[in-house]
C-alpha cells in the first residue's frame, strides 16, 4: 500500500472550493481506491502517516491500524454503491468523527533498498497546472493508487501570471474554443456552397457576435466544470492558487506548503508578443478567442498554425483579414506543397497575405483605428492587430532556478525521455517542456509519467508518427515525414500526389480543391508521410495515422478497398508516383535528384 489516496476526496475538494459539506459518498469512493490498491498487492512496506491540509501535522496510530486491517482478501465490489453496503459502521463513524477536519492522508513509500531516508509527504504527487498533461498525469496517478493534488490558477478566458483555469490551454484558450469558432465561421462558406445546391437566402445571413461568445463561454464553463469533476472523481485534490516550487519536495500555493514525493510541472505555455513600438495595442490568441465584438478589419502577424486558424475564423465571420508573414510561405516546417496549397486556398477565400513583411510598429490613430508599420510600408485602418508569433513556456516565478531545474534558452524545462527534470523528484510534461506542443502529446506524456511513477512501468512517450491538424479553412492533416524530411532521412523516395476538385465543389461552383500526398520509401515501400489539405482533413488523417504508425507499406494502402464516394479513398487509389526522387546516380540510370512527372492519371 504505497500509494494511498486521501479519503473523503469529494468533501475535501468541495471544502477547498468553498462548497457545502458533501454527503458521505465521497469517503466510499476513496476507500474503494485504497481497496483496489490493496488488492494490487504492492510489495513495498508502507508507513502510514496523516497530514492535515490546513493544520499542523499529526499522526494517528489508530488510523494506521484501521487502514492496515482493511479486509484485503475480500473480492472487490463491482460498484461503489454496492461497496457502501460493506462498509462497517466503525469505518463510517470513523470518517464522520475523526476525519471531519483532518481528513487528508498520504503515505510515504520507502524504497526497498533503503537508499532514501524515510520521510513523510503530504502527497505522492503534486502537480502544478491542471491542463491536459497535468490532469491526465494526476488522474492516472490516482487511478494507480497515488495520493495526488493538483493546483491551478483561477479561471479566466485570458491567461496571465495569476489566471488560468482547470482544463488549461486546450479547453479554455486553445483547441476547444478555437474549434468552436471554426465551426461558427465555417457556416459562411457553407451558405455559399448551399447556393450551388439550390438553397437561397432572402437576405445574406448575418452573424451575431455576442450570441456566439455567450454560447462559447457557456460551453467553456461547462467543460471546466467537467474537468473539475474528472479530477474529483479520480480522487485528486484540487487546490486553487499559484504553485511555486520551494524545494525538491515542497510546493508553495499562495503561502501554504505541501510536500510531495514527486512534483510535476505542467504549467503549459502562453502567447508571446514581441516588444515593438505599440505592441500594447496588439492582442494575442487568448484575447482573440474572447473579443467583445466582431473585428471589422484584422491584421494577423505570424504564419504558424494559430495565425492561419484565426485568419479562417475571422474571415468566415466576415471580417476583413490580412496576414503578415516574415517568410515567403506560411507554416514553416510543414510539407512545402501543403504550404503552397493552403496559402492559395486561403487567398481564394478572401484572405490577403502580406509575405516577407515584418512588423515594426503599431500606431493608434485619433479615430481609434490601428496601423501596422512593416519593413515594406504601412497598412492602415485595422480594428484589431493580432500577434500569433509563438508561445513561451510558463516557467517564470515557479521557483525553478532556486531548486536547480534546468531550462533551455526559451525557458522550456529540460527533461529526459521519461519527462524527468534535472532534479530527480521533479518532472515536467506538456508545453512547458516545448517538445511537441499538442494536447494529445501532453496526454501521452502525462499518461506515460503516471505509469513510470506509480505503476512500476517506466514508459517513454513515443514521438514517432504523431499526427496533427491545422484547423485552417480548408484544414490540414498530416502524419509522419514531409517530403523534404523524407529525402533527407531516406534519400530515395516515391511521392504520390492528388490535387482534385471534390464532388461538393463541382456543384457549389466554389474554387475549393483538395490536395493529398503520400511519401513512400523507395527501398522498403513504407509510407513515411501522409499529408492532406482540404475538407475533413483532420478527421481523415486519424485512421491513416494508425497505418503510418504501424509501419504499413504503400502496397498495404493499395490493398485496401475505397469507401466510395469520399475524398479519403484517394489515399488508397494512388497508383502512379508523381515523382521518384533518387539520390544515387546509378539508380534507374539517372543522375542526381530527379523529379519525374506522372504520365496521365
Amino acid at each position, binding site marked *: 500500500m504505497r500509494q494511498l489516496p486521501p479519503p473523503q476526496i469529494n468533501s475535501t475538494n468541495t471544502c477547498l472550493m468553498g462548497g457545502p459539506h458533501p454527503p458521505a459518498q465521497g469517503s466510499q469512493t476513496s476507500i474503494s481506491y485504497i481497496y483496489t490498491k490493496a488488492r494490487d498487492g504492492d510489495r513495498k512496506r508502507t508507513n502510514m502517516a496523516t497530514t492535515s491540509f490546513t493544520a499542523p501535522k499529526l499522526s494517528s496510530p489508530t488510523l494506521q491500524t484501521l487502514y492496515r486491517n482493511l479486509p484485503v482478501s475480500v473480492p472487490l465490489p463491482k460498484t461503489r454503491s454496492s461497496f457502501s453496503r460493506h462498509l462497517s459502521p466503525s469505518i463510517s463513524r470513523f470518517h464522520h468523527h475523526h476525519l471531519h477536519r483532518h481528513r487528508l492522508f498520504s503515505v510515504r513509500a520507502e524504497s526497498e533498498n533503503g537508499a532514501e531516508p524515510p520521510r513523510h509527504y503530504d502527497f505522492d504527487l503534486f502537480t502544478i497546472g491542471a491542463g491536459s498533461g497535468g490532469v491526465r498525469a494526476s488522474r492516472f496517478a490516482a487511478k494507480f493508487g497515488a495520493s495526488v493534488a493538483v493546483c491551478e490558477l483561477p479561471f479566466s478566458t485570458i491567461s496571465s501570471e495569476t489566471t488560468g483555469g482547470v482544463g488549461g490551454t*486546450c479547453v479554455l484558450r486553445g483547441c*476547444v474554443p478555437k*474549434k*468552436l469558432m471554426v*465551426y*461558427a465561421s465555417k*457556416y459562411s462558406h*457553407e*451558405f455559399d456552397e*448551399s447556393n*450551388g*445546391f*439550390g*438553397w*437561397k*437566402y*432572402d437576405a445574406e*445571413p448575418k*452573424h*451575431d*457576435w*455576442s*450570441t456566439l461568445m455567450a454560447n462559447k463561454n457557456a*460551453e467553456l464553463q461547462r467543460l471546466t466544470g467537467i474537468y473539475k469533476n474528472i479530477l474529483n472523481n479520480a480522487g485528486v485534490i484540487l487546490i486553487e492558487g499559484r504553485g511555486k516550487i520551494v524545494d525538491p519536495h515542497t510546493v508553495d500555493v499562495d503561502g501554504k506548503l505541501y510536500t510531495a514525493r514527486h512534483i510535476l510541472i505542467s504549467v503549459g505555455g502562453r502567447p508571446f508578443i514581441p516588444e515593438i513600438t505599440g505592441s500594447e495595442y496588439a492582442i494575442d490568441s487568448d484575447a482573440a478567442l474572447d473579443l467583445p465584438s466582431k473585428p471589422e478589419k484584422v491584421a494577423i502577424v505570424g504564419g504558424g498554425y494559430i495565425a492561419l486558424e484565426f485568419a479562417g475564423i475571422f474571415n468566415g465571420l466576415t471580417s476583413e483579414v490580412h496576414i503578415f508573414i516574415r517568410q515567403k510561405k506560411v507554416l514553416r516546417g510543414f510539407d512545402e506543397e501543403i504550404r503552397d496549397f493552403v496559402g492559395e486556398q486561403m487567398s481564394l477565400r478572401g484572405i490577403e497575405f502580406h509575405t516577407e513583411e515584418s512588423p515594426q510598429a503599431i500606431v493608434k490613430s485619433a479615430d481609434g483605428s490601428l496601423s501596422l508599420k512593416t519593413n515594406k510600408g504601412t497598412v492602415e485602418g485595422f480594428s484589431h492587430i493580432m500577434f500569433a508569433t509563438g508561445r513561451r513556456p510558463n516557467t517564470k516565478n515557479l521557483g525553478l532556478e532556486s531548486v536547480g531545474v534546468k531550462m533551455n534558452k526559451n525557458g522550456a524545462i529540460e527533461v529526459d525521455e521519461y519527462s524527468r527534470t534535472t532534479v530527480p523528484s521533479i518532472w515536467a510534461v506538456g508545453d512547458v517542456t516545448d517538445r511537441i506542443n*499538442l494536447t*494529445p502529446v501532453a496526454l501521452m506524456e502525462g499518461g506515460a509519467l503516471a505509469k513510470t511513477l506509480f505503476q512500476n512501468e517506466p514508459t517513454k512517450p*513515443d514521438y514517432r508518427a504523431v*499526427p*496533427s*491538424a491545422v484547423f485552417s479553412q480548408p484544414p490540414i*492533416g498530416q502524419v509522419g515525414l514531409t517530403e523534404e524530411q523524407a529525402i533527407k532521412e531516406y534519400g530515395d523516395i516515391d511521392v504520390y500526389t492528388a490535387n482534385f476538385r471534390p*464532388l*461538393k465543389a*463541382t*456543384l457549389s461552383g466554389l474554387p475549393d480543391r483538395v490536395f493529398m500526398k503520400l511519401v513512400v520509401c523507395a527501398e522498403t515501400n513504407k509510407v513515411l508521410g501522409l499529408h492532406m489539405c482540404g475538407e475533413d482533413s*483532420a*478527421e*481523415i*488523417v*486519424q*485512421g491513416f*495515422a*494508425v*497505418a503510418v*504508425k*504501424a509501419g504499413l507499406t504503400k502496397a*498495404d*494502402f493499395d490493398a*485496401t*478497398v*475505397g*469507401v*466510395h*464516394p*469520399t475524398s*479519403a*479513398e484517394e489515399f*488508397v487509389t494512388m497508383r502512379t508516383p508523381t515523382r521518384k526522387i533518387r539520390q544515387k546516380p546509378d539508380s534507374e540510370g539517372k543522375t542526381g535528384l530527379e523529379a519525374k512527372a506522372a504520365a*496521365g*492519371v
Partner: protein
Amino acid sequence: MARKMLVDGELSQTNADEAHYDFDLFVIGAGSGGVRAARFSANYGAKVGICELPFHPISSEVIGGVGGTCVIRGCVPKKILVYGAAFGGEIEDARNYGWEVNENLDFNWKKLLHKKTDEIIRLNGIYKRLLSNAGVKLFEGEGKIVGPNEVEVTQLDGTKLSYSAKHILIATGSRAHRLPIPGQELAITSDEALSLEDLPKRAVVLGGGYIAVEFASIWRGLGATVDLFFRKELPLRGFDDEMRAVVARNLEGRGINLHPRTNLTELIKTDNGIKVVTDHGEELIADVVLFATGRVPNSKRLNLEAVGVELDKTGAVKVDEYSRTNIPSIWAVGDVTNRMNLTPVALMEGTCFAKTVFGGESSKPDYSNIPCAVFSIPPLSVVGLSEEQAIEQANGDVLVFTSTFNPMKNTISGRQEKTVMKLVIDAETDKVLGASMCGPDAPEIMQGIAVGLKCGATKAQFDSTVGIHPSAAEEFVTMRSVSRRITAGGKPKTNL
C-alpha cells in the same frame, strides 16, 4: 501504338491464333467494373472493345450510359443530393452559432436537379474519354452474347454489329426491383427518385436497406415528411445490430417516421396523392412512394442461356474466384455477379480480371475487410466484422469497445444527436476485427481505419497512435476501457 499480346500470360501463342479474333476482350457494360477492366486490359496491351446502352439518367432495358449505376444513378448523384439535403440541418445548427438565417428558407429543387444532371453528363463524358485515351473502342448499343467468343451489338438505328473476341466480360450491373403489389406501377425506384420533377412534400419509402435510409434522409433534409417502412425491427439488416439501432434513433431524431415490421400491401391513386396501405391496416397519403426493395442483376437480355452461362436463382451470373463463368472464355464482374455490390469492389474485380487475363498474374479479388458507407444523415460507415459476426466467427473471447459522445459541434448547436463508435477485438490476438461509426464524417474517417484492419492491426497499435485533437476520429485511438467481453460461445455480458 504497339500492343503486346499477353493472353492468359501465354506469350508463346502463335500469331495465327491471335489474328483469329476481332478483339482480345469485348466488354458488355461500361460501368465501374467494365470500364476498369477494359482500361486496364488495354494498358496491358490487349485490344479491347466495349459496348454500352445510350445515356439516360433513368435506366431501362434499352438505356444506360457510360459510367454505369455509380456515376449516373447511384453513388454520385445520391451523394450530391445528400450534400444538398445536409445543408438543411447545417442551417438549423448555424443559428446557435450566432447566424441569423430566415425561418423560411427557399430551396430550389429544380436547380439542384439540373446541376446534378449537368455533373453526371460531365462525368459520363470523362468516362468516355478515359476509355478512348486507353485505346478502348466504344460501341453504343445493346450487347448480346452469340457464342463463347462472339458478341453482337445492336446499335441505335437497329443495325447489328458482330465481333469475335478471345474473352468476353459481362459487366452489365443491376437494376432496381419493384415489389409486386397492387398499384406497384404508382411507385418509383431509386432511378426515378434521383430525377424527380418535383420535390415531394410527403414521401413514403419502402425498404430497410441503405438505399432506403439514404433517400429517407435526403427528402427529410430537404423538408419533406418522410415515412420509412421496413420488415425487420431495425433498418440495415446485416450491419452491426448496435449500429442499426443508432441509425434508427438518428433517423427518428431528424424527423423521419419509422414503421418497423411493416409491409405495404397496396398503392391506390387518389386525387390527393397516392394512398398507401400497410399490412397493419394503416393508410396514409403520399406524393411519392419509393420502392427500395433490392436490385436485380441485368442478365436477362444477354442471351446467356444460348451459350450456357450459368445463373443463380436471383439471376446473378455465377463465377469462380477469378470472375470466370462456367464458359472459360466468358467472365463477369460487378453487380451482375451479386457478390458485394459496391463500386470499389467492382473496380477491384475489374482490376483483378485484367491482371489475371492480360497481366500474366493470376489475381483473386480479396473480399476481407472491405469498408463501406451508408450516406444517411448522419452517415454510417463500417469495416470488418460486426459484433454479431465476430462472436460467431471468433474462436475465443471478443472484446467490444464503444464510445458514445456528443460531437463538439452539437455542444453549441444544441442538436441532440450522439456519435457512436465501436471497435470489436479478438481478445486472444488483440486484432481489431471490426470498426463502425455512425456520425458526421464517418465514411471519410473509416477509410484510414480500413487500412489498419486490412493489415491486421491490433488494438495496441490503435492505442499507440496519438490522437488528432479535437476531432471525432481521435476517439478510435483513445478507447481505453472495454465496454463488454463476450466469452467464447457465451452471451454478451457487460462489466459496467
